[in-house]
């Protein structure tokens, strides 16, 4: 990064020193070196204000006992008031294994079945049928993503309602003789957590995979078919390896966004219906830090939950880069010599 800005700075030198006269060279050089920072400054200021400072603050807060009751009294910025108590509290929490298990299940199942799995299936199907039909289908599938999240989640709650109000019960389950028409969010909360997140999540990968598949030059698929491959073999041996990069990106990106996403779960079950039944890590952080739990709002404790989540996310990202051999993906081709 540093080297690059320097390079731009050098290139930014005006190419007409003769016209400017010798006296001005010093000034123009300085201006040339400052110009890139001037252009960068709006972004730098925004990133510093709304990303970097909050990040540092959350990190510091996670070592303090700051909450609503001692706000304004506790000098949280002083190292004297810092301790590892919050972290000890997290790792001795008797619901820790349940929350961790919920998080892993939520991320793994939603990612595998929907955000990557179904996204890939839809992308493959819609790129191997008539172009226009495929495009229309993908557009439809994209609708949940551009629907306001509250409306979308409330719609699912209504769908899951007990008979005779709930659509799923009334028109599918009861006529088929499945279940007694109970509120489905109470009987199968996880199914709905997966579905609600998955239907939105799959659209992201679908768009990326479909455009990646469509941008594979036709010669490769023709060559593969002439070489004797069936459609499935062409997908397996030629198309999938060629979209490795979007696969890595979607898997990594969606893992991280699933780890930190909780709004649909909050609106759908709010961690229930049983004690911590669908509570995931990020929802716990939110509950501890920003809802009035046990009469106070434990900012410091919630921040500690968030920090652990960030560390989990970083570890996951590094593992993905290793598994997908990121270095090989960005390897530059050797210069063509005849």
């Amino acid at each position, binding site marked *: 990064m540093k080297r690059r800005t320097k390079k731009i700075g050098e290139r930014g030198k005006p190419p007409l020193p003769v016209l400017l006269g010798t006296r001005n060279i010093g000034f123009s050089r300085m201006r040339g070196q400052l110009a890139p920072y001037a252009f960068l400054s709006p972004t730098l200021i925004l990133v510093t204000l709304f990303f970097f400072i909050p990040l540092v603050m959350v990190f510091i807060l996670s070592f303090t006992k700051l909450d609503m009751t001692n706000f304004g009294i506790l000098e949280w910025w002083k190292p004297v008031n810092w301790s590892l108590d919050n972290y000890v509290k997290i790792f001795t929490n008797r619901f820790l294994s349940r929350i961790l298990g919920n998080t892993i299940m939520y991320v793994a199942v939603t990612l595998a079945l929907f955000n990557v799995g179904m996204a890939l299936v839809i992308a493959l199907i819609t790129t191997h049928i008539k172009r226009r039909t495929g495009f229309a289908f993908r557009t439809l599938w994209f609708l949940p993503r551009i629907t306001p999240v509250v409306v979308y989640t409330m719609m699912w709650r209504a769908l899951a309602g007990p008979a005779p109000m709930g659509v799923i019960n009334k028109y599918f389950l009861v006529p088929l003789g499945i279940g007694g028409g109970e509120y489905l969010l109470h009987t199968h909360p996880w199914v709905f957590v997966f579905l609600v997140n998955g239907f939105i999540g799959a659209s992201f990968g679908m768009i990326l995979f479909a455009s990646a598949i469509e941008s594979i030059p036709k010669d490769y698929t*023709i060559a593969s*078919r002439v*070489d*004797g491959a069936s459609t499935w073999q062409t997908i397996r041996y*030629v198309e999938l390896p*060629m979209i490795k990069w979007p696969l890595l990106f979607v898997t990594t990106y969606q893992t991280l966004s699933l780890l930190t996403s909780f709004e649909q779960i909050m609106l759908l079950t709010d961690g229930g219906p049983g004690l911590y039944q669908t509570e995931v890590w990020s929802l716990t952080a939110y509950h501890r830090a920003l809802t009035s739990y046990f009469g106070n709002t434990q900012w410091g404790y919630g921040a500690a939950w968030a920090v652990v989540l960030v560390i989990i996310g970083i570890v996951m990202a590094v593992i993905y880069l290793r598994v997908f051999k990121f270095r090989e993906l960005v390897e530059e081709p050797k210069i063509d010599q*005849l």
Partner: protein
Amino acid sequence: MKIALEALNKHFGKVKAVDNLDLEIGDGEFVALLGPSGCGKTTTLLMLAGIYKPTSGHICFDDRVVNHLLPKERNIGMVFQSYALYPHMTTFDNIAYPLKLKRVRRREIKERVQKSADMMGIGDLLDRKPAQLSGGQQQRVALARALVKEPAILLFDEPLSNLDAKLRLRMRGEIKRLQEDLGVTAVYVTHDQVEAMTMASRIALMNYGVLQTYGTPNQLYDHPDTFFVAGFIGAPPMNFLEMTFEERENGFYLKTQALEIRISAERGALAKQNDIPQRVIMGIRPESVSIVAERDGDFKAEVHLIEPLGREDLVTFRFIDEEIRVLVPAPFDGRIGETICLKLDKEKAHLFNPETEVSVLRTGNGRSS
């Protein structure tokens, strides 16, 4: 394997990419599909490969209609302009791919891949990825991949267009030699008439989806059927002059403002028999015009441009408002602006009807003389 195309059509919406094509290719023959871009030659090739289904008509391999056969059931090998080597596979895996799909045993795959790689002179590059190979090497890998399954038909889609001039010349010879050694039927799509002339035993020249002519390179060069063929084949291209045809008591004449030539009674009669109109297009190749002393010349022209080609010089002459390009032995000692006498080899002149664009010197069997 013999190939026969019968009344073959391929339409994309309203566009007739291939229009009523009839073509026969003999066993072991090397045929070039030649034409400008968008003429339907690649569409024809992809129909042979089984990628496109014909709108109507038949494709026969050895008298068997194969319209409905999938690419993998046709036993063909194909080489692309882009090489289309799978970038995530090594050279070995690329060449082995057709065999792997056929579920050939691993040991046999290894032997056959090594054999065809050695034949192409890339036996020591088997563990490289395509990105680590030069264009020429990639081309050889693509050839090895096409040959490894011992296909009955080899299809080439402009395979040399991405190579530099020197390498192209070499690969041209290598492909031709390889095809002859293996005795495999080959169909070669190209827009480069030199490539088609040098490699193919017969050339099918196409334009706007329609087959213009089908014959040996020499037939196409010496006796073009149509105005399009005459203009497309040959580099530098044929000269065309608009002339008036006249029959007089003492023979047949072609006239313009600047020159008047007499053509032989035999050719004149043939032209008359083919309903030669009064206005005709005369075509003459640059090598059929020569510089002569003043008394032997047909007409005088001014030197306009001299392009040395090494062995010969290509000289552009101007007379009145016409231009004619002439190949003269190098070095040409004339100067720009100088007026020089030229003579046409009348027996090598071609005459075309400007309306139908068909040669009026064609004989009964359809071939112009």
